[in-house]
Protein backbone atom coordinates (compact mmCIF):
# COMPACT_ATOMS: atom_id res chain seq x y z
CA UNK A 1 0.00 0.00 0.00
CA UNK A 2 1.99 2.97 -1.26
CA UNK A 3 0.73 6.31 -2.51
CA UNK A 4 2.56 6.18 -5.85
CA UNK A 5 2.48 2.48 -6.79
CA UNK A 6 2.23 2.44 -10.59
CA UNK A 7 -0.83 0.83 -12.22
CA UNK A 8 -1.57 0.05 -15.89
CA UNK A 9 -2.82 3.10 -17.79
CA UNK A 10 -5.56 0.86 -19.21
CA UNK A 11 -7.00 0.49 -15.70
CA UNK A 12 -7.16 4.25 -15.30
CA UNK A 13 -8.71 4.62 -18.80
CA UNK A 14 -11.44 2.08 -18.04
CA UNK A 15 -12.16 3.62 -14.61
CA UNK A 16 -12.35 7.07 -16.20
CA UNK A 17 -14.90 5.85 -18.77
CA UNK A 18 -16.96 4.20 -16.01
CA UNK A 19 -16.94 7.35 -13.85
CA UNK A 20 -17.83 9.73 -16.69
CA UNK A 21 -20.55 7.41 -18.05
CA UNK A 22 -22.08 7.29 -14.58
CA UNK A 23 -22.61 11.07 -14.63
CA UNK A 24 -25.51 10.93 -17.15
CA UNK A 25 -26.97 7.93 -15.27
CA UNK A 26 -26.79 9.98 -12.07
CA UNK A 27 -28.37 13.02 -13.74
CA UNK A 28 -31.21 11.08 -15.37
CA UNK A 29 -31.89 8.21 -12.95
CA UNK A 30 -30.19 7.88 -9.57
CA UNK A 31 -30.42 11.52 -8.46
CA UNK A 32 -32.92 12.86 -10.99
CA UNK A 33 -34.53 14.89 -8.17
CA UNK A 34 -31.72 17.49 -8.43
CA UNK A 35 -33.12 18.80 -11.72
CA UNK A 36 -36.52 19.18 -10.03
CA UNK A 37 -35.05 22.01 -7.94
CA UNK A 38 -35.45 24.14 -11.09
CA UNK A 39 -39.03 24.99 -10.03
CA UNK A 40 -38.32 25.56 -6.32
CA UNK A 41 -38.35 29.29 -5.41
CA UNK A 42 -35.05 30.95 -4.48
CA UNK A 43 -36.09 31.71 -0.89
CA UNK A 44 -35.91 27.98 -0.12
CA UNK A 45 -32.25 27.89 -1.31
CA UNK A 46 -29.89 27.79 1.70
CA UNK A 47 -26.43 27.72 0.07
CA UNK A 48 -23.73 25.47 1.53
CA UNK A 49 -20.49 27.08 2.73
CA UNK A 50 -19.01 26.29 -0.70
CA UNK A 51 -21.84 28.16 -2.41
CA UNK A 52 -21.47 31.19 -0.11
CA UNK A 53 -17.67 31.45 -0.32
CA UNK A 54 -17.32 31.25 -4.10
CA UNK A 55 -20.09 32.84 -4.23
CA UNK A 56 -22.37 30.83 -6.49
CA UNK A 57 -25.62 32.34 -7.79
CA UNK A 58 -29.06 31.35 -6.45
CA UNK A 59 -30.28 28.64 -8.85
CA UNK A 60 -32.97 29.67 -11.30
CA UNK A 61 -34.83 27.56 -13.84
CA UNK A 62 -32.36 28.59 -16.58
CA UNK A 63 -29.22 28.02 -14.47
CA UNK A 64 -30.34 24.57 -13.28
CA UNK A 65 -31.34 23.37 -16.73
CA UNK A 66 -28.18 24.91 -18.25
CA UNK A 67 -25.80 23.13 -15.83
CA UNK A 68 -27.75 19.90 -16.38
CA UNK A 69 -27.33 20.10 -20.18
CA UNK A 70 -23.66 21.16 -20.07
CA UNK A 71 -22.80 18.36 -17.64
CA UNK A 72 -24.63 15.79 -19.75
CA UNK A 73 -22.70 16.70 -22.92
CA UNK A 74 -19.29 17.21 -21.25
CA UNK A 75 -19.41 13.90 -19.37
CA UNK A 76 -20.38 11.81 -22.41
CA UNK A 77 -17.55 13.32 -24.50
CA UNK A 78 -15.11 12.95 -21.58
CA UNK A 79 -16.01 9.24 -21.35
CA UNK A 80 -14.32 8.69 -24.75
CA UNK A 81 -10.99 9.80 -23.27
CA UNK A 82 -10.71 12.89 -25.50
CA UNK A 83 -9.05 16.03 -24.05
CA UNK A 84 -8.84 14.41 -20.60
CA UNK A 85 -7.46 17.42 -18.72
CA UNK A 86 -9.79 20.05 -20.20
CA UNK A 87 -12.98 17.99 -20.26
CA UNK A 88 -12.19 16.32 -16.95
CA UNK A 89 -11.77 19.68 -15.24
CA UNK A 90 -15.02 20.94 -16.81
CA UNK A 91 -16.95 17.87 -15.64
CA UNK A 92 -15.53 18.21 -12.10
CA UNK A 93 -16.44 21.90 -11.78
CA UNK A 94 -19.91 21.45 -13.31
CA UNK A 95 -20.61 18.45 -11.07
CA UNK A 96 -19.48 20.38 -7.98
CA UNK A 97 -21.94 23.19 -8.80
CA UNK A 98 -24.59 20.49 -9.47
CA UNK A 99 -23.98 19.17 -5.95
CA UNK A 100 -24.39 22.68 -4.50
CA UNK A 101 -27.76 22.87 -6.30
CA UNK A 102 -28.58 19.40 -4.97
CA UNK A 103 -27.65 19.86 -1.32
CA UNK A 104 -28.64 23.48 -0.61
CA UNK A 105 -32.35 22.94 0.07
CA UNK A 106 -32.23 21.47 3.57
CA UNK A 107 -30.72 18.01 3.10
CA UNK A 108 -27.10 17.00 2.52
CA UNK A 109 -26.39 13.48 1.26
CA UNK A 110 -23.20 11.58 2.11
CA UNK A 111 -23.07 8.99 -0.64
CA UNK A 112 -20.50 10.50 -3.03
CA UNK A 113 -17.31 11.72 -1.38
CA UNK A 114 -15.33 9.03 -3.22
CA UNK A 115 -17.01 9.91 -6.51
CA UNK A 116 -16.15 13.61 -6.10
CA UNK A 117 -12.52 12.73 -5.34
CA UNK A 118 -12.44 10.53 -8.46
CA UNK A 119 -13.74 13.44 -10.58
CA UNK A 120 -11.16 15.76 -8.99
CA UNK A 121 -8.11 13.53 -9.56
CA UNK A 122 -8.90 12.01 -12.98
CA UNK A 123 -7.90 15.15 -14.95
CA UNK A 124 -4.39 15.01 -13.40
CA UNK A 125 -3.42 11.85 -15.32
CA UNK A 126 -3.66 13.02 -18.93
CA UNK A 127 -3.79 10.60 -21.84
CA UNK A 128 -4.53 6.95 -21.10
CA UNK A 129 -5.68 4.38 -23.65
CA UNK A 130 -8.02 1.46 -23.02
CA UNK A 131 -6.03 -1.76 -22.72
CA UNK A 132 -2.64 -0.04 -22.35
CA UNK A 133 -0.56 -2.09 -19.92
CA UNK A 134 2.14 0.59 -19.55
CA UNK A 135 2.39 1.30 -15.85
CA UNK A 136 2.04 4.86 -14.58
CA UNK A 137 2.63 6.44 -11.18
CA UNK A 138 0.26 9.33 -12.00
CA UNK A 139 -2.53 6.81 -12.69
CA UNK A 140 -1.57 4.95 -9.51
CA UNK A 141 -1.97 8.06 -7.37
CA UNK A 142 -5.35 8.94 -8.91
CA UNK A 143 -6.75 5.47 -8.17
CA UNK A 144 -5.11 5.36 -4.72
CA UNK A 145 -6.59 8.77 -3.77
CA UNK A 146 -10.05 7.51 -4.80
CA UNK A 147 -9.55 4.34 -2.73
CA UNK A 148 -8.61 6.47 0.29
CA UNK A 149 -11.80 8.50 -0.14
CA UNK A 150 -13.93 5.33 -0.40
CA UNK A 151 -12.45 3.84 2.76
CA UNK A 152 -12.60 7.21 4.57
CA UNK A 153 -16.35 7.28 3.89
CA UNK A 154 -16.83 4.09 5.92
CA UNK A 155 -14.33 4.88 8.67
CA UNK A 156 -15.48 8.44 9.31
CA UNK A 157 -19.15 7.39 9.07
CA UNK A 158 -18.56 5.26 12.18
CA UNK A 159 -16.82 8.20 13.83
CA UNK A 160 -19.78 10.48 13.00
CA UNK A 161 -22.18 7.95 14.55
CA UNK A 162 -20.20 8.08 17.79
CA UNK A 163 -20.00 11.90 17.64
CA UNK A 164 -23.70 12.55 16.91
CA UNK A 165 -25.36 9.45 18.25
CA UNK A 166 -22.95 8.46 21.02
CA UNK A 167 -22.42 4.89 22.17
CA UNK A 168 -26.20 4.65 22.54
CA UNK A 169 -26.36 4.53 18.74
CA UNK A 170 -25.40 0.87 18.93
CA UNK A 171 -28.48 -0.10 20.95
CA UNK A 172 -30.88 2.56 19.63
CA UNK A 173 -33.71 2.32 17.11
CA UNK A 174 -31.96 3.95 14.14
CA UNK A 175 -32.44 0.98 11.80
CA UNK A 176 -36.03 0.43 13.02
CA UNK A 177 -36.71 4.05 12.14
CA UNK A 178 -35.04 3.64 8.72
CA UNK A 179 -37.11 0.56 7.86
CA UNK A 180 -40.37 2.15 9.11
CA UNK A 181 -39.71 5.18 6.92
CA UNK A 182 -38.22 3.54 3.83
CA UNK A 183 -38.73 -0.19 4.18
CA UNK A 184 -39.52 -2.57 1.30
CA UNK A 185 -41.39 -5.88 1.12
CA UNK A 186 -37.98 -7.51 1.65
CA UNK A 187 -37.29 -5.73 4.93
CA UNK A 188 -40.60 -4.74 6.56
CA UNK A 189 -40.71 -7.97 8.60
CA UNK A 190 -37.48 -7.18 10.48
CA UNK A 191 -39.06 -4.37 12.56
CA UNK A 192 -40.69 -7.13 14.60
CA UNK A 193 -37.20 -8.36 15.59
CA UNK A 194 -35.51 -5.29 17.18
CA UNK A 195 -32.72 -7.51 18.57
CA UNK A 196 -31.70 -8.43 15.03
CA UNK A 197 -31.56 -4.77 14.01
CA UNK A 198 -29.53 -3.83 17.10
CA UNK A 199 -27.12 -6.67 16.28
CA UNK A 200 -26.80 -5.32 12.78
CA UNK A 201 -26.00 -1.86 14.19
CA UNK A 202 -23.03 -3.39 16.09
CA UNK A 203 -21.95 -5.13 12.89
CA UNK A 204 -22.10 -1.89 10.86
CA UNK A 205 -19.93 0.10 13.30
CA UNK A 206 -17.45 -2.78 13.63
CA UNK A 207 -16.97 -3.16 9.88
CA UNK A 208 -16.79 0.61 9.32
CA UNK A 209 -14.11 1.05 11.99
CA UNK A 210 -12.03 -1.80 10.57
CA UNK A 211 -12.50 -0.79 6.92
CA UNK A 212 -8.99 0.78 6.55
CA UNK A 213 -7.62 -2.78 6.70
CA UNK A 214 -8.85 -3.18 3.10
CA UNK A 215 -6.04 -0.87 1.94
CA UNK A 216 -3.36 -3.20 3.36
CA UNK A 217 -4.76 -6.59 2.32
CA UNK A 218 -3.00 -8.83 -0.21
CA UNK A 219 -4.56 -8.57 -3.68
CA UNK A 220 -6.76 -11.68 -3.54
CA UNK A 221 -8.18 -10.88 -0.10
CA UNK A 222 -8.64 -7.25 -1.04
CA UNK A 223 -10.79 -8.29 -4.03
CA UNK A 224 -12.89 -10.52 -1.74
CA UNK A 225 -13.36 -7.68 0.74
CA UNK A 226 -14.49 -5.33 -2.03
CA UNK A 227 -16.95 -8.00 -3.19
CA UNK A 228 -18.33 -8.20 0.35
CA UNK A 229 -18.74 -4.41 0.44
CA UNK A 230 -20.69 -4.48 -2.84
CA UNK A 231 -22.90 -7.20 -1.31
CA UNK A 232 -23.50 -4.96 1.74
CA UNK A 233 -24.69 -2.11 -0.50
CA UNK A 234 -26.94 -4.47 -2.48
CA UNK A 235 -28.54 -5.60 0.78
CA UNK A 236 -28.95 -1.99 1.98
CA UNK A 237 -30.67 -1.15 -1.29
CA UNK A 238 -33.03 -4.12 -0.99
CA UNK A 239 -33.88 -3.17 2.61
CA UNK A 240 -34.24 0.62 2.55
CA UNK A 241 -33.80 1.58 -1.16
CA UNK A 242 -30.71 3.71 -0.48
CA UNK A 243 -28.16 2.82 -3.12
CA UNK A 244 -24.93 4.74 -2.40
CA UNK A 245 -24.40 4.16 -6.12
CA UNK A 246 -21.85 6.98 -6.71
CA UNK A 247 -19.80 5.53 -3.84
CA UNK A 248 -20.05 2.06 -5.44
CA UNK A 249 -18.77 3.47 -8.75
CA UNK A 250 -15.78 5.05 -6.96
CA UNK A 251 -15.09 1.72 -5.24
CA UNK A 252 -14.37 0.21 -8.70
CA UNK A 253 -10.97 1.96 -8.31
CA UNK A 254 -9.96 -1.24 -6.45
CA UNK A 255 -10.76 -3.54 -9.40
CA UNK A 256 -8.45 -4.71 -12.25
CA UNK A 257 -10.58 -2.88 -14.81
CA UNK A 258 -7.90 -3.06 -17.55
CA UNK A 259 -9.14 -6.63 -18.13
CA UNK A 260 -12.63 -5.38 -19.00
CA UNK A 261 -12.48 -4.77 -22.78
CA UNK A 262 -16.03 -4.65 -24.19
CA UNK A 263 -14.96 -3.26 -27.59
CA UNK A 264 -12.25 -5.92 -28.02
CA UNK A 265 -14.68 -8.67 -27.00
CA UNK A 266 -17.22 -7.34 -29.48
CA UNK A 267 -14.74 -7.29 -32.38
CA UNK A 268 -13.53 -10.82 -31.52
CA UNK A 269 -17.13 -12.00 -31.40
CA UNK A 270 -17.73 -10.46 -34.83
CA UNK A 271 -14.53 -11.99 -36.26
CA UNK A 272 -15.53 -15.42 -34.95
CA UNK A 273 -18.96 -15.19 -36.55
CA UNK A 274 -18.87 -17.71 -39.48
CA UNK A 275 -21.19 -15.74 -41.76
CA UNK A 276 -21.15 -12.05 -40.90
CA UNK A 277 -23.82 -10.11 -42.81
CA UNK A 278 -21.21 -7.75 -44.35
CA UNK A 279 -19.27 -10.69 -45.86
CA UNK A 280 -22.42 -12.27 -47.22
CA UNK A 281 -23.14 -9.20 -49.34
CA UNK A 282 -19.76 -9.14 -51.15
Amino acid at each position, binding site marked *: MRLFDAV*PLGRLAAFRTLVYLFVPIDLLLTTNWVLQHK*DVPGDLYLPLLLGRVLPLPTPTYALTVGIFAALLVASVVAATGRAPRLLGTAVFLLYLEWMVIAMSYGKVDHDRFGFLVALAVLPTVGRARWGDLTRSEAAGWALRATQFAVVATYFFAAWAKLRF*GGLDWLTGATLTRAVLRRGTFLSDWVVDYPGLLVGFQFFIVAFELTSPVVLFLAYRWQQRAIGALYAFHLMTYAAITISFLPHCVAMASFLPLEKVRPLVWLSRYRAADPAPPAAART
Partner: protein
Amino acid sequence: MSGHGTLSRPDTEVRLGGRGRAVRLGVTAVCALLVVAGTLVGQDDDFPFGPFRMYSTTDDISAPVASTRLEAIDTTGRRFRLSDGMTGMRRAEIEGQMSRFRADPALLGGLAEAYDDRNADRPPLARIEIIIRHFDLDAGRPTGRYTDTLDTGWDAS
Protein backbone atom coordinates in the same frame (compact mmCIF):
# COMPACT_ATOMS: atom_id res chain seq x y z
CA MET B 1 -9.58 5.44 -29.29
CA SER B 2 -9.83 1.87 -28.05
CA GLY B 3 -6.25 0.81 -28.81
CA HIS B 4 -5.53 -2.86 -29.26
CA GLY B 5 -2.48 -3.24 -27.13
CA THR B 6 -0.03 -2.09 -29.78
CA LEU B 7 1.22 0.66 -27.51
CA SER B 8 1.22 -1.49 -24.40
CA ARG B 9 4.53 -1.76 -22.66
CA PRO B 10 3.86 -3.73 -19.48
CA ASP B 11 7.59 -3.70 -18.72
CA THR B 12 7.81 0.10 -18.77
CA GLU B 13 6.80 2.46 -16.04
CA VAL B 14 5.99 6.15 -16.46
CA ARG B 15 7.29 7.75 -13.28
CA LEU B 16 6.37 11.05 -11.64
CA GLY B 17 8.91 13.85 -11.18
CA GLY B 18 9.85 15.17 -7.75
CA ARG B 19 7.54 18.17 -8.09
CA GLY B 20 4.63 16.03 -9.31
CA ARG B 21 5.05 13.78 -6.29
CA ALA B 22 5.35 16.65 -3.84
CA VAL B 23 2.20 18.39 -5.10
CA ARG B 24 0.18 15.15 -5.01
CA LEU B 25 1.45 14.31 -1.53
CA GLY B 26 0.53 17.81 -0.32
CA VAL B 27 -2.97 17.69 -1.81
CA THR B 28 -3.57 14.24 -0.31
CA ALA B 29 -2.47 15.45 3.14
CA VAL B 30 -4.57 18.64 3.02
CA CYS B 31 -7.71 16.71 1.99
CA ALA B 32 -7.09 14.13 4.72
CA LEU B 33 -6.82 16.93 7.29
CA LEU B 34 -10.04 18.54 6.02
CA VAL B 35 -11.92 15.24 6.32
CA VAL B 36 -10.65 14.70 9.87
CA ALA B 37 -11.51 18.30 10.83
CA GLY B 38 -14.95 17.97 9.19
CA THR B 39 -15.69 14.81 11.13
CA LEU B 40 -14.42 16.28 14.44
CA VAL B 41 -16.02 19.74 14.37
CA GLY B 42 -17.66 20.21 10.95
CA GLN B 43 -21.31 20.25 9.95
CA ASP B 44 -23.29 19.34 6.81
CA ASP B 45 -22.70 22.93 5.69
CA ASP B 46 -19.00 22.09 5.09
CA PHE B 47 -19.83 19.74 2.17
CA PRO B 48 -17.95 17.84 0.79
CA PHE B 49 -15.73 17.74 3.89
CA GLY B 50 -18.52 17.68 6.48
CA PRO B 51 -19.06 14.66 8.74
CA PHE B 52 -20.44 11.50 7.08
CA ARG B 53 -23.48 11.54 9.31
CA MET B 54 -25.87 9.33 7.38
CA TYR B 55 -28.07 7.59 9.96
CA SER B 56 -25.79 8.87 12.72
CA THR B 57 -28.40 10.08 15.20
CA THR B 58 -29.59 7.82 17.99
CA ASP B 59 -33.28 7.02 18.19
CA ASP B 60 -34.75 5.97 21.51
CA ILE B 61 -35.78 2.32 21.27
CA SER B 62 -39.30 3.11 22.55
CA ALA B 63 -39.89 6.71 21.42
CA PRO B 64 -42.37 7.08 18.54
CA VAL B 65 -40.85 7.21 15.04
CA ALA B 66 -41.85 10.38 13.19
CA SER B 67 -42.58 10.44 9.47
CA THR B 68 -43.34 13.75 7.77
CA ARG B 69 -45.63 14.28 4.79
CA LEU B 70 -47.24 17.16 2.93
CA GLU B 71 -50.94 17.26 2.13
CA ALA B 72 -52.63 19.81 -0.10
CA ILE B 73 -56.19 20.98 -0.77
CA ASP B 74 -56.80 22.45 -4.20
CA THR B 75 -59.37 25.11 -5.14
CA THR B 76 -61.98 22.41 -5.87
CA GLY B 77 -61.68 21.16 -2.28
CA ARG B 78 -59.86 17.93 -3.17
CA ARG B 79 -57.34 16.80 -0.53
CA PHE B 80 -54.32 14.75 -1.59
CA ARG B 81 -50.79 13.77 -0.62
CA LEU B 82 -48.31 16.27 -2.08
CA SER B 83 -45.44 14.05 -3.32
CA ASP B 84 -41.82 15.12 -3.84
CA GLY B 85 -42.31 15.06 -7.61
CA MET B 86 -45.28 17.46 -7.47
CA THR B 87 -43.23 20.31 -5.99
CA GLY B 88 -39.60 19.42 -6.77
CA MET B 89 -38.67 19.43 -3.07
CA ARG B 90 -37.88 16.16 -1.28
CA ARG B 91 -39.39 15.05 2.03
CA ALA B 92 -35.98 15.17 3.74
CA GLU B 93 -35.54 18.76 2.52
CA ILE B 94 -38.91 19.75 3.98
CA GLU B 95 -37.79 18.19 7.28
CA GLY B 96 -34.45 20.01 7.03
CA GLN B 97 -36.19 23.39 6.76
CA MET B 98 -38.96 22.60 9.23
CA SER B 99 -37.96 25.35 11.68
CA ARG B 100 -38.15 27.91 8.85
CA PHE B 101 -41.60 26.69 7.76
CA ARG B 102 -42.83 26.90 11.37
CA ALA B 103 -41.47 30.42 11.83
CA ASP B 104 -42.78 31.60 8.46
CA PRO B 105 -45.54 29.39 7.00
CA ALA B 106 -45.69 31.77 4.00
CA LEU B 107 -42.62 29.88 2.68
CA LEU B 108 -45.05 27.03 1.92
CA GLY B 109 -46.59 29.42 -0.60
CA GLY B 110 -43.41 28.97 -2.65
CA LEU B 111 -44.15 25.25 -2.83
CA ALA B 112 -47.69 26.02 -4.01
CA GLU B 113 -46.17 28.19 -6.76
CA ALA B 114 -43.81 25.36 -7.75
CA TYR B 115 -46.79 22.95 -7.83
CA ASP B 116 -48.82 25.33 -10.00
CA ASP B 117 -45.85 25.76 -12.42
CA ARG B 118 -45.36 22.03 -12.70
CA ASN B 119 -49.06 21.10 -12.89
CA ALA B 120 -50.55 23.85 -15.07
CA ASP B 121 -53.37 21.51 -16.16
CA ARG B 122 -54.63 21.03 -12.58
CA PRO B 123 -56.54 23.36 -10.25
CA PRO B 124 -54.20 25.55 -8.13
CA LEU B 125 -53.60 24.87 -4.45
CA ALA B 126 -55.61 26.59 -1.73
CA ARG B 127 -53.88 25.05 1.30
CA ILE B 128 -50.76 23.08 2.21
CA GLU B 129 -50.27 21.19 5.47
CA ILE B 130 -47.16 19.61 6.99
CA ILE B 131 -48.39 16.54 8.84
CA ILE B 132 -46.24 14.39 11.10
CA ARG B 133 -47.19 10.77 11.72
CA HIS B 134 -45.83 9.22 14.92
CA PHE B 135 -45.58 5.43 14.80
CA ASP B 136 -45.90 4.01 18.30
CA LEU B 137 -43.04 1.71 19.40
CA ASP B 138 -42.94 -0.68 22.33
CA ALA B 139 -39.40 -1.90 23.15
CA GLY B 140 -38.42 -1.17 19.55
CA ARG B 141 -41.38 -3.05 18.05
CA PRO B 142 -44.12 -1.13 16.23
CA THR B 143 -47.49 -1.53 17.97
CA GLY B 144 -49.46 -0.76 14.82
CA ARG B 145 -50.82 2.44 16.38
CA TYR B 146 -49.96 5.89 15.08
CA THR B 147 -51.09 9.46 15.56
CA ASP B 148 -51.12 12.21 12.94
CA THR B 149 -50.44 15.80 14.01
CA LEU B 150 -50.84 18.93 11.96
CA ASP B 151 -47.48 20.69 12.33
CA THR B 152 -47.78 23.74 10.07
CA GLY B 153 -50.44 24.96 7.67
CA TRP B 154 -50.58 27.64 5.00
CA ASP B 155 -53.62 29.11 3.23
CA ALA B 156 -53.58 30.94 -0.09
CA SER B 157 -55.04 34.39 0.51
